């Protein structure tokens, strides 16, 4: 891992560290399996047949490449930067999660695993995993906090229709972090036959870099598309961050392009100053949880505190370790947007562009509504619209005091 460097794209080192962050903090029972996974992934990565199969599925099954869309009305409304949407909400299953899941489930098959487990917050990763498991005829169990089961009911139903078993998790705060604890507990008992399909760029090495690699299709496509449309690279990239997989997928291919300003938007909940938020980088400090060292929301002793966000997908007290490293390197700016700002942006996009975004990218959009007006008109700004809002309509209606 170079510390002073010409490249931000060479991490992690062979032990899975991005500087101070990352690593493999897991129970010994899992360690040999994680080493197997790393070996299998490295072989698959170098295997043209694996890549060919993945690319075929991404194109023919998931619908890639997703369009890069010039949001003309939003651009005019904000009166600054020229805004493009990377339309990853148009993927099969409605979010960027399918990019990673197709890769991991193909890998599970290649490794001869006969069962797949996953954790999910908003349910997008759970739906994507259930989808891929249906396609490949592999039994699938999705762990989901009971609070999220309630607030993301449409996705729970989708997973069940797709043949997955959804296990509500009632321990701890009954949200995403607890779902991840429970998935890890299941995996310790079943690791010889079960593949754990992690949904974000977190967890023990090799997950952060593996999930990143699978998500980099987003940024790689943007590079090609914007060159075709504008003949040059973008000036600004913006994406929302819970664990940080959609953001890493967009950012990573541009990390070494010094002229590209990169902004990650965390969930500010009721406001970072209130303590009720999910902004690990803004309001947390480095610690060890779920197999990696990264920024975490925690108390003085190191007990993990509960995150808060209107968006179940961002409601996590940690963040992928590579984001922690990029923050400390100063390569990426990390900011936050509150629940209310995200709700306002959600409604704005519906009315101006006819797109109902998920609450997760609505946070990125909320920041863009502040940032874009400060930028010149020739500033090319790309925001990752990483999920669609169908799953959120009930939660938003309730928040706005409307009946569905």
């Amino acid at each position, binding site marked *: 891992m170079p510390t002073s460097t010409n490249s931000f794209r060479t991490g992690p080192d062979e*032990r899975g560290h991005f500087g101070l962050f990352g*690593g*493999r*903090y*897991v*129970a*010994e*029972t*899992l*360690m*040999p*399996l994680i080493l197997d996974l790393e070996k299998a992934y490295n072989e698959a990565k170098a295997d043209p047949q694996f890549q060919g199969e993945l690319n075929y599925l991404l194109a023919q099954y998931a619908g890639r490449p997703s369009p890069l869309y010039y949001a003309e009305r939003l651009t005019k409304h904000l009166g600054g930067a020229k805004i493009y949407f990377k339309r990853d909400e148009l993927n099969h299953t409605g979010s960027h999660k399918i990019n990673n899941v197709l890769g991991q489930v193909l890998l599970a098959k290649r490794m001869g695993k006969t069962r797949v487990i996953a954790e999910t917050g908003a349910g997008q990763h759970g739906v994507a995993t259930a989808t891929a498991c249906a396609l490949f005829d592999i039994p699938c169990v999705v762990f989901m906090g009971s609070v999220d089961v309630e607030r993301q009911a449409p996705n729970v139903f989708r997973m069940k229709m797709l043949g997955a078993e959804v296990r509500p998790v009632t*321990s*701890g705060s009954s949200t995403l*972090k*607890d779902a991840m*604890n429970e998935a*890890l*507990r299941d995996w*310790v*008992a*079943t*690791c*010889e036959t079960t593949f754990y399909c992690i949904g974000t760029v977190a967890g023990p090495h090799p997950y952060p870099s593996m999930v990143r690699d699978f998500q980099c299709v987003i940024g790689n496509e943007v590079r090609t598309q914007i060159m075709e449309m504008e003949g040059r690279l973008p000036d600004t990239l913006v994406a929302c961050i819970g664990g940080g997989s959609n953001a890493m997928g967009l950012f990573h291919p541009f990390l070494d392009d010094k002229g590209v300003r990169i902004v990650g938007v965390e969930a500010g909940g009721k406001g970072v100053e209130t303590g009720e938020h999910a902004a690990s980088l803004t309001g947390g400090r480095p*610690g*060890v*949880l*779920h*197999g990696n*060292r990264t920024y*975490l929301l*925690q108390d*003085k*002793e*190191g*007990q*993990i505190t509960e995150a808060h966000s209107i968006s179940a997908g961002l409601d996590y007290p940690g963040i992928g370790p590579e984001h922690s490293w990029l923050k400390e390197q100063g390569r990426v700016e990390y900011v936050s947007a509150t629940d209310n700002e995200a709700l306002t942006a959600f409604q704005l996009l519906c009315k101006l562009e006819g797109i109902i975004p998920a609450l997760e990218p609505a946070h990125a959009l909320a920041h863009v509504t502040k940032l874009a007006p400060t930028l010149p008109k020739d500033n090319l700004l790309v925001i990752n619209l990483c999920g669609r809002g169908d799953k959120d309509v009930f939660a938003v209606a309730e928040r706005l005091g409307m009946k569905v």
Partner: protein
Amino acid sequence: MSRITKRFEKLKADKRAGLVIYISAGDPNAEVSYDILKGLPAAGADLIELGMPFTDPMADGPSIQVAGQRALKAGMTVDGTFDMVRRFRKETGDNDTPILLMGYYNLVYQRGVERFCKEAAAAGVDGFILVDLPPEEADELKPHAEAHGLDTVLLTAPTTDDKRLPAVLKYSAGFVYFVSVLGITGTKSATEEAVATHVARIKRHTKLPVGVGFGIRTPEQAAAVARHADAAVVGTAIVDRVKAGLDADGKPKPGLTAGVLADVKALAGGVRSVSKA
């Protein structure tokens, strides 16, 4: 020589295996938890694992998860855990029974590894079992633990094969903890045959004593493990007994401590029924 090593030498001289008892520090509250701790050696515990309650105990089953939550709710902290050990050494005058802290690395990391080791050693702690610190990351802890005379007990599992064992043993001191089943604490039990095979395999690689845990609940199971290993570790069954001693509001009922210690005594009877001549 550390207290842990001395204790295992004594067990060897006494021709028997040891009983390791796990309790969650501060469960159900600091006072009752201390009373239990204080009574453990007389009840037959040869070594003590004191669990540091953590919000996200990923390798633990429901019993120990909830025990940790009870302790946190009752206000247990890392300092409170150190206090329990300090008080134990001072009030009981017991300077022979080893006490290990068991838990998750973040609590150690947040305090600062060096400071944590220093304070633990000063309180009378003898070693650590950190569930989420495999050999791959153990070099963060090992030098500081050694500098303060603390043993690092690493876990081995059925998945730790002969090729990997040396890596685990490189960072192990005091004893080796064999997790006898694939899974979290308190859910399944291994067969005696499986325990025998794995313990023999580990012993081909090391002279360190081997303790076996996960899934041991009864004196009979403890005796079965004692036939093959140097110590049997019991945790969930003890924590469950604490819970059984609480009323509907979570308040300790009279006789809770006596009940827990009676169970420990029965388990010790199981372990001591096996002669290792």
